[in-house]
């Protein structure tokens, strides 16, 4: 039972990180029908940018204000990278065959990943301990302060995003653009700014996810974007890609599943089980758990 509760806590933590990153995939997909393969590498880049801001700009301060500043600056710089990425690599290909945009995304992913390697080097870096290493023992279940912060902040961000998309005029414009870009344009929505906005939101959420990964796992490598990005992407697909609550649900399901596999089976099989779960879900529900069954129009 202890293992169960412990892995439940760990799973929720990992799951909320997956969910944050998955939101970036799913929002971009929702509007552009494009798998943004570079998103995972932006998540990795965010951890490195955060590290550099911590050492160079903040002078290794770990006060609350400094930590908040690190988060804001990292998220801000990734938002800028995201908008540039869309402008340079994706916008020229909007009318092109879909696979061309996919390859462009893969190219962008290689550029960012190897850019990180060229700037920060190929070896693993240790992310600073920004949060005091407190933890509580609740009857055999150890929960750390980092876990609490990750979980709470992720929930706040996800709820904020949900209300933004569902309840505001801007959110309505995002939803309209994801249903039909041309019709949205006819309604006076500037689809280009909506897409830029989506890259701002998605990239900054991913940036927060990247910092969480740094805080939680401590070791960061230039190529970790593939790994975490792929997991988050799987989470987005599981939930039904393009669907915002689906990405949150998918992230949590995947995090819990992973934690239980690691706890009860073996972490050396985690990848295999994750993808088997994904394949089974897709065979049963071809568009994900919350994905809508869209009838193909002729």
């Amino acid at each position, binding site marked *: 039972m202890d293992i169960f509760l412990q892995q439940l806590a760990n799973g929720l933590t990992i799951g909320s990180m997956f969910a944050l990153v998955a939101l970036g995939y799913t929002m971009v997909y929702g509007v552009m029908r494009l798998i943004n393969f570079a998103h995972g590498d932006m998540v990795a880049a965010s951890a490195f940018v955060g590290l550099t801001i911590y050492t160079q700009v903040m002078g290794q301060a770990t006060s609350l204000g400094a930590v908040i500043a690190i988060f804001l600056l990292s998220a801000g710089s990734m938002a800028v990278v995201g908008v540039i990425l869309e402008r340079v690599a994706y916008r020229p*290909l909007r009318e092109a065959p879909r696979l061309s945009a*996919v390859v462009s995304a893969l190219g962008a992913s*290689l550029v960012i990943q190897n850019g990180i*390697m060229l700037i920060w080097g190929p070896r693993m870096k240790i992310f600073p301990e920004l949060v005091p290493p407190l933890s509580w023992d609740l009857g055999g279940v150890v929960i750390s302060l980092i876990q609490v912060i990750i979980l709470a902040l992720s929930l706040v961000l996800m709820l904020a995003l949900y209300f933004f998309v569902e309840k505001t005029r801007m959110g309505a414009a995002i939803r309209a653009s994801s249903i039909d870009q041309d019709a949205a344009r006819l309604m006076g929505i500037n689809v280009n700014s909506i897409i830029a906005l989506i890259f701002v939101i998605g990239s900054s959420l991913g940036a927060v996810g990247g910092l969480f990964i740094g805080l939680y796992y401590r070791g960061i490598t230039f190529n970790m974007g593939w790994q975490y990005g*792929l997991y988050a992407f799987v989470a987005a697909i599981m939930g039904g890609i393009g669907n915002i609550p689906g990405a949150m649900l998918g992230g949590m399901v995947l995090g819990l599943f992973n934690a239980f596999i690691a706890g009860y089976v073996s972490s050396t099989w985690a990848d295999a089980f994750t993808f*088997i779960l994904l394949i089974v879900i*897709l065979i049963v529900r*071809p568009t994900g758990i919350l994905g809508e069954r869209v009838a193909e129009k002729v």
Partner: protein
Amino acid sequence: MKAFRKFSYPVFFAVMAVLPHLLNERWQAVAITFLIFSVVALSQDIVLGKSGMFNMGQALFFGMGAYTTAILNHEFGWPILATIPLAILIPILGGLLLAGPIVHLRGDYLLVTTIGFNIVFVQVLQNNLGGVTGGPNGIFGLDSLSLFGTQLTSQVSVYYFAFAVLLLTLWIMRNLEKSKPGRALHYLREDQLAAESIGINTRLYKIFAFGLGAGIAGLAGTVYATQYSAVSPEAFDFIQSVLFFSIVIVGGSSVPGVLLGVFVMFVLPEIFREFATWRFFIFGFAMILAMILRPRGIVPATFGKIPKFLIKGGSHGA
């Protein structure tokens, strides 16, 4: 252009046929790598380019063939050439079984599922399931080629083995284009619903394409295992699949395009070795640039011999 094409193939074959005698050992090895990866990229082209299925797991079938050869040779002492039938059949079987339940999935879902298969495959190899895959280190120390009791230890014989496999693949692809299944796949790729409505069994042909691609990739795997006399899981990682995927799309899913892509991706880095750390950084930019400048690929494929006056609007391929 047409006259150029007419001459370029015989010239290409003639150059490739004498090439190993002009190169030293190291460049022979590079040439063999080029041949092997060309075959895998062409097999990927059958599934992705010719049939339009978003397959990002072709390294799986490549690895299946390589491991079949390695295991049969290393564990059971079969000569390398004798493993060929199984190294083709097992990936075909794998392709049919894996494709069966997933071919109905829409584009991107199919893509992530095939990535998934590839990752599961690599993890199975790494965890040494059944105790025959050699775990993370793989299997090494395979025999060299032998034919009727003669040992063919020189690298030149591996080169001709690889070259023969490439010729076979090109022949299959040429025939495919002129045959009923090839036309069916082409319609499928252009418009699945229309293909279905004129009586093409889309499910059957999709699975067929997967099986055919898998078999060819498996044969390439045998050549790979022979050349390196070793196999290891990371050689068949899904990153490799991503490279093959990109090569086909950037190349334009035509034979010259794919060969050019393999050359750029695997041979150029050998020439510019001092830029090794910059390799993927530059490739990334090249991929973006290539797609922006030529969204249908460097050398876009044309299908069959459709008279010009029948092509309306000129939109070709999707």
